[in-house]
């Protein structure tokens, strides 16, 4: 009985923690993305920009997994603030990425925010 109570308590805490997470994810597979409703208003424009531009070459699933796990899903490399900046520079320099420095900067700031939120 005591075990059951402990299990129920733990399960409740886990559910509560997930429910309390400020950054939620919607969809699965190729349709996976951060839930726009969980993005603060001041980041909404950056989020729209990211969702529109980044999917030119890869799905948002890659970005979501990288933020959630702290690792880039393809390379297995750490996905932290330093990596976010490096990826931003890489995308800036990538031919036909069609992103300028200002746009890259906004996306980098947004990803840093998402990383911080995920670490909570």
């Amino acid at each position, binding site marked *: 009985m005591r075990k059951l109570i402990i299990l129920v308590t733990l399960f409740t805490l886990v559910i509560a923690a997930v429910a309390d997470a400020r950054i939620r994810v919607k969809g699965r597979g190729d349709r996976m993305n951060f839930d726009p409703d969980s993005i603060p208003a001041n980041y909404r424009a950056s989020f729209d920009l990211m969702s529109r531009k980044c999917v030119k*070459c890869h799905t948002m699933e890659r970005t979501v997994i990288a933020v959630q796990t702290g690792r880039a899903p393809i*390379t297995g490399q750490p996905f932290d603030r330093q990596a976010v900046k490096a990826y931003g520079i890489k995308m800036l320099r990538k031919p036909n990425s069609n992103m300028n420095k200002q746009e890259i900067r906004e996306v980098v700031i947004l990803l840093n925010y998402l990383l911080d939120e995920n670490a909570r």
Partner: protein
Amino acid sequence: MTRKPALILCLIGSCLVQLIVVASSHAIPAFSRAYKVECSTCHTIYPELNEYGEAFLKNSYVYFGKGQKAAKAKEAPPTPKATAKPAGGTMEVKGEGDADKLSKLKGGALGAPEASAPAPAQEAAATAPDTAPGGEAKPEGLLLAAIPELLPISFTASIHATYDHNAVNELDLSTRALKLNAGGNFREKAAFFATYVAYSEGLRDNNTTTSAPLRNNGTDINELFVIWRHAFDTPINFKVGRMQPKLGLWKSNNKLSTTNSFAPYAYTVGVSEFKLEQPQDALEANAVLANRFFVAAGVVNRKDQNTKEGYGHISYKFGGADYLANEPEVDLAKEESIFDFLTVTVGAYGYYGKNGTPNTPTGVSPPIQNSYYRAGADLDILYKLFRLRVAGVLGKDDNAYLNLSSTPIELKSYVAAVEGEYTFLQNLIGALRFEYQDDGRGLVRRFIPTLAYAPLQNVKIALEYKHEIVTSYRFPSNGSSIKRPDDTAQDITNKIGTLGVTFSF
């Protein structure tokens, strides 16, 4: 002397170029399979490399950062050894498996030094030596045996249709090639690469009148070498086997065109078959120094020849990602600058060698030798969607026609190529090249526009045209067997168009 022999010579040459489209490769789906990455990670349009592909190549086929990562990898907190206390006894019985020891062994397998401080969970997970790119754990047995998890083999096929204005058969739909490629690394300590030409279109048998398809031109190992990576924990890699010596900035196939090699790398002089892109049996040492400086030097051993040949290469990269694929420092808070997007790579090289009749077998006396050298410089400029490549080489052969007489003919050669490239779309790139070739036999100028399209990342359709103006030197008609360049020249124009499909799997 009329134009006919020179014309025939040019036709044969152009046919051979079309038939021997079996340049070595460095772009193989085996890497894509092993690392679970797209072709576009390392290529613009296959097989042309982007700067990350260059970094992968220079890192001996080890995925970016993995070597550094392994070097920085921290040992996970030691796991308590398996112990068991038998019932009723006090004797401690150790289990056969020692997780701590195995962890060290696996760490050592990837060159991870022992460290006392435990790593944070995230970092430890990311730097675990038995974690493959993609974050998946490699099977322990395969890891310890250093065997690649996937068979690192792939194929490249090319099918071309060629239109030659001067040929009897103007439109040729039968130029095909099939290559087998293999490459990879063994626990990041050693690497290997091989290219085997399984099929290339043979020449037509003039004696047959049947409708039989052309025979195989012959199978051949184009490249087969092994690399001892970071020997003795230094940045130096030792490469041995059959390989293209590291001379120019780009390997023979690292270009948009599928049929037209860069003249500075592909030209020959006199009867000598030497060309810079020719695979050689060699031992090479190379290293990336200070992330942006690349040096290579090697010794070539020619069959049946005591004299060894030597070569060297240096190159430096300004701007862009460095040779270890680290991104440049760009301040995102500042206004855009030209230097945010500009990458300039400069390289220089030299090669000294001898060829001719063998000098080691008995009965061959005296050996007829041709001593030659090549000295060249390359420049690669990348700015946003533009790329400019400049290559130049000068050479000297002291007996280019392997003359038996006491007065060998010395030939100097001057060859250059300039190619501009523009990326219209990620999968559509155009290039325009001009080549100037004075090889002592004549003066050749080529204009080569190329348009490459990749409907899929592993499928390339290339449309090429070569406008070639050949000013052949006339040779004396005094009955002498020695060909001597003359000042009198005549022009021949070749027009060759090619539509080719290349695919890898």
